[in-house]
């Protein structure tokens, strides 16, 4: 192998690694919780308007009332949010925001955005409260439902997994 081709092959390999990292970065999925609960920032309480319509990345808008949360799944770090206030002062706000790569679930606070709060406060990490596992439901996933009448084979028969 010539040094030239060694170099080029290393470049290809590095390129693949770099591409992987880039893909990881731009493809990382996040669960966004669009939140209209009131927030207090710098001692100021910000409240959401009565009715708004929210849309992320230009997807079909959803209307929200006060103190609601809706879940939106997105991929990648950079997103835009469009908030249209239906009640009260009729206005439309469009903002860009960035989600940290390793933040799996994020709360996006509508009042903070509408209230012109500093952009760091728009997004906060969401930690799910511990949920009791539902073992019954899980069991169903674990086994292919056997046929009602089929006895559990002592496996002397089927040497191979069934197709």
């Amino acid at each position, binding site marked *: 192998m*010539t040094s*030239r*081709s060694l170099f*080029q092959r290393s470049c*290809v390999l590095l390129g693949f690694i770099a591409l992987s990292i880039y893909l990881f970065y731009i493809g990382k999925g996040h669960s966004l919780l669009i939140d209209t609960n009131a927030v207090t920032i710098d001692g100021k309480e910000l409240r959401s308007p009565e009715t708004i319509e929210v849309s992320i990345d230009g997807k079909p808008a959803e209307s929200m009332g006060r103190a609601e949360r809706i879940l939106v799944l997105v991929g990648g770090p950079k997103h835009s949010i469009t908030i249209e206030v239906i009640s009260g002062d009729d206005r439309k706000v469009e903002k860009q925001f960035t989600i940290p790569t390793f933040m799996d679930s994020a709360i996006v606070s509508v009042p903070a955005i509408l209230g012109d709060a500093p952009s760091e406060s728009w997004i906060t990490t969401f930690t799910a409260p511990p949920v009791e596992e539902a073992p019954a439901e899980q069991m169903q996933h674990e086994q292919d439902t056997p046929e009602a009448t089929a006895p559990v084979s002592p496996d002397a028969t089927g040497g191979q997994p069934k197709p």
Partner: protein
Amino acid sequence: MDSAEPILSLKGIGKSFYGNRVLADVSFDVGAGEIIGLVGENGAGKSTLMKILFGMPVISETGGFEGSIFFNGKEARFKTPFDALDAGIGMVHQEFSLIPGFTTTENILLNRESLNSSVLVDIFGPRISTLDRATMESRAKSAIDKLGVTLDPNMLIKEMPVGHKQFTEIARELCRENVKLIVLDEPTAVLTESEAEVLLSTLRLLASEGIAIIFISHRLREVVELCDRVVVLRDGHKIEDFPAKGSSTKQIASLMVGRSMEAQAKIDAASAARSTQSESDARETILSIENLWVDMPGETVRNVNLSVKKGEIFGIGGLAGQGKLGIPNGIMGLSPAGGSVILNGTPVPLNAPRAALERNMAFVSEDRRGVGLLLDEGIDWNIAFTAMQVQNKFLKPILGGLFLWRSDAAMSNLAEEYIKLLEIKCTGPGQRAGNLSGGNQQKVCLAKAFALRPDVLFVSEPTRGIDIGAKHLVLDTLKKYNSEYGTTIVMVSSELEELRSVCDRIAIVYEGRIEGILPHTAPIEDFGILMAGADRDEAPVALVGGN
């Protein structure tokens, strides 16, 4: 054609395989533009010599060779055939080494294709480049043009007549840059006469362009016609090296098969001693063969007529590929055959091994490991099996004869008997046949045939690949068996000497036909002429026997 500096010069080449000498002190030169005919019987050392020249791995694996090779003025020791090819030596094999589904061009340039350059080469290596078909075709065309024949560069090999395939092979060798020497191994064996003519004139054309040619052939007439010089090998020695012009096929043939004076004298004495007992009585015919054809790959028999007398040892000789092996294989039903074979006055069905065996004929095959033996079974099985299956020997009826039970004890006894009789060196009747030496394997094969107590025994190449001591024992056993039981033996062998020392009459096969039948006392030159295909122009040899 004298040239100052020979292209190839072999000096004192010698080689032995496992202490078995196959080549000794062979030296000759090949000049540029010279055509050398290399002739010799099978086993004379031609193919070993070529293997040495091409640096085949088998040579170095078995301890290398003696002497030295000078190619193009420099000493050459090729490690692999590819080194030899790179240096400028081309080889055209007896069997076609062509890819059937490829075109002429693709075959001529196999693994030497012209490539388009590509940026991917640095990353994935040169094999990622696409083929440059246009350049390839023009390269192939120029190689074909050198041959002076017309070949369609885009025709598939499998759709070609045989002759074109041969030309494609030669074009492939020519297409290499700097090719200086081409070795052709039996190039005309598969060609028709007119195709062979074209090939010969092509070779002359190449030689006139300065390419040296080594032409290996059994067709002596072609050798005389084509070559500048003829080198004769016999028993691993170079016997003669003389200009082809003015020589005759007869002369070459007798050089090929001739023995040293002492050996000759010994054989003559031996055969003279036997001559009295066999020739005197005009015995009845036991086996007569008419219009026999046998389709055995490489040993095709076209039209054989023979009759064998009861109680004689009948020899069949001839050069390799002429069909002598096909005769017993056809009669015994192992190869597709037609014609008529009459044993004791009743015809033997062909293409039915069992029928042949049931008519009390037995066969010791030349392909010991492939046909002759059950390598994974014991000696007892090997010896007894055929007799058991055909003649119901070594079987005990049980349940009133409803079933036939194999008697291992009887088989073992039989094996013990033959082990003693034939001096088979083994650990016992149960030893696997695959673990025996070649000579002992051959004895097992003979024992298998003897166990059948045949009326007619075909023995094919009984001494091939076994050591001298075993050879004598095998031949003596055959003679003894013949005299003790009166069994008619038909022995096929490429070793004329052997045939002459054992047989009463010897038929020589040439191009699938019996060229002639001679008594064992006939002078060796006569055999040589028959083997080389008696030149029709020369005076026909007086034939003895025949139908």
